[in-house]
């Protein structure tokens, strides 16, 4: 098979040629933009993922050139491969929009509305999905499910109530680490992600479950409640790491490194490094290196300007020249007040980025947490 026959697919009236065996989702992503269906459970870097959340449902209005009948039901685009001459409707189909709103409603049935507390807010895929495809109100009038709190170690915070059971973290633990310690327990409504005995997951790459989680169920404990993501500035950085590629994104405020994550592509998935491997990062890079001197900073990350994270990032900013010193014969201007003398926020003796867990009242009452 030297010359592969390419399949012609039309998605939302845009025609492209893709290799056989490509899923509809991948074909749509190669077009890009709004045509690509959202995906909560599918993760292209994890084998076997997808098919669970049903947010990527699309309508196939023409099966193929040979069999032009439409598919009777909406299909999950992440698990359906393309056929030659297939015609797919995503955002042009009202059926898809309606179905997706229903899926969002289902996903939000048990998802708590604690976005003001959740550290994932601002980069949460479920939040984006809800805004774009969901309905404003909820019709659910029962108690949301609750769980016993599991402590899964000093680095990762598990909020089981927020979990949408996408299984991405399970695949990550399965495929990146050689010893799988956490999985899904129980069935149906009771299923939950947990470690069997409440033991710490101590694998070098287990921190990647944080990046993979589409919601705030798995978050970085070393970043917990430290800052909101949209107040931190993402910069690309790297270091010489013996275990991983060491190409990361630092989330900084001033000179403080608040959080380290892997670099993400436009679909919110971990980017490939230059040699084509997925840029998973190790726990040491993610949790231990919170000093700016540990890293070689490459420059600010490119953030979509529609993202809340882009707020306050003035691209191409040109600072006006300071003229006072010139006009006043080298005399510096005298300020009436330096805000740092007065403000209690961001005191130099409290380095929030360096304390291990979330700050508590001890941190602010002078007693540094050890």
């Amino acid at each position: 098979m030297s010359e592969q026959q390419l399949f012609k697919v039309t998605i939302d009236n845009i025609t492209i040629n893709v290799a056989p065996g490509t899923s509809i989702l991948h074909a749509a992503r190669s077009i890009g933009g709004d045509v690509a269906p959202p995906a909560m459970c599918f993760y292209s870097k994890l084998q076997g993922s997808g098919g669970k959340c049903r947010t990527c449902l699309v309508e196939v209005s023409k099966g193929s050139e040979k069999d032009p009948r439409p598919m009777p039901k909406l299909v999950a685009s992440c698990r359906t491969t393309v056929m030659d001459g297939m015609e797919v409707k995503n955002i042009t189909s009202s059926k898809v929009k309606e179905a997706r709103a229903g899926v969002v409603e289902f996903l939000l049935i048990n998802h708590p509305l604690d976005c003001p507390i959740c550290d994932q807010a601002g980069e949460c895929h479920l939040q984006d999905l809800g805004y774009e495809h969901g309905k404003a109100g909820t019709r659910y009038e029962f108690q949301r499910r609750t769980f016993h709190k599991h402590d899964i170690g000093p680095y990762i915070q598990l909020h089981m109530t927020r979990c949408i059971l996408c299984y991405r973290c399970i695949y990550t633990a399965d495929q990146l680490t050689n010893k799988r310690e956490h999985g899904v327990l129980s069935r149906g409504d009771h299923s939950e992600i947990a470690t069997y005995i409440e033991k710490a997951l101590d694998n070098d790459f287990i921190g990647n479950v944080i990046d993979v989680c589409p919601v705030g169920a798995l978050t970085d404990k070393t970043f917990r409640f430290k800052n909101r993501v949209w107040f931190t500035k993402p910069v690309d950085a790297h270091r010489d790491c013996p275990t991983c590629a060491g190409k990361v994104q630092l989330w900084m405020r001033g000179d403080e490194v608040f959080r380290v994550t892997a670099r993400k592509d436009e679909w919110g998935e971990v980017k490939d490094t230059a040699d084509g491997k997925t840029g998973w990062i190790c726990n040491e890079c993610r949790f231990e290196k919170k000093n700016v001197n540990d890293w070689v900073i490459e420059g600010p990350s490119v953030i979509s300007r529609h993202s809340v994270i882009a707020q306050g990032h003035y691209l191409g900013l040109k600072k006006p020249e300071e003229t006072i010193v010139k006009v006043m014969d080298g005399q510096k201007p005298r300020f009436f007040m330096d805000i740092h003398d007065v403000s209690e926020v961001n005191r130099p003796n409290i380095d929030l980025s360096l304390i291990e867990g979330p700050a508590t009242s001890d941190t602010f009452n002078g007693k540094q947490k050890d």
Partner: protein
Amino acid sequence: MQALTNRVKDVDRRPMTFGEKIYLPAVLKGMSITFSHMFRKKPTINFPEQTRQFSPVFRGLHVLNRDEEGRERCTACGLCAVACPAEAITMEAAERKVGEENLYREEKYAARYEINMLRCIFCGLCEEACPKDAIYLSETFTPSNYNRKGLIYDKEDLLIPNPLTEKADLAKAKGL
């Protein structure tokens, strides 16, 4: 030359008459206008002893709200700070410890919360953004101050009195 508006008045450049030259009638005329104003209704009031009624949409000094049990409602979500066009609001969050449930409503709370009243433009966007009903713009002015330091309001300045323990203060603040 064509005038730009219809309010143009030509200056009278004729030499003054004798009556105008002695000035006295003009002085008396001016004094009588001043004197007549003494008997008119005063447009000013003696603030702060007297106050005017505010319009229902008046936006004044911020307050941080508590719930009925006296717990702070703010969870430091940062939406007020991101909504603030003047970048006047800053905060630092902390996790609620065991035993602090009577102080803070949610798992996370604002350990530090500051509004720089020098920057604030009282637009009320923070109030609109707040998902927790925690910040409100009250119907009082921000008191003036002799130095800038006093206009950086921290959480203690902004929080309303506790409805359980400081009932009298709360009633006073409400103007009851």
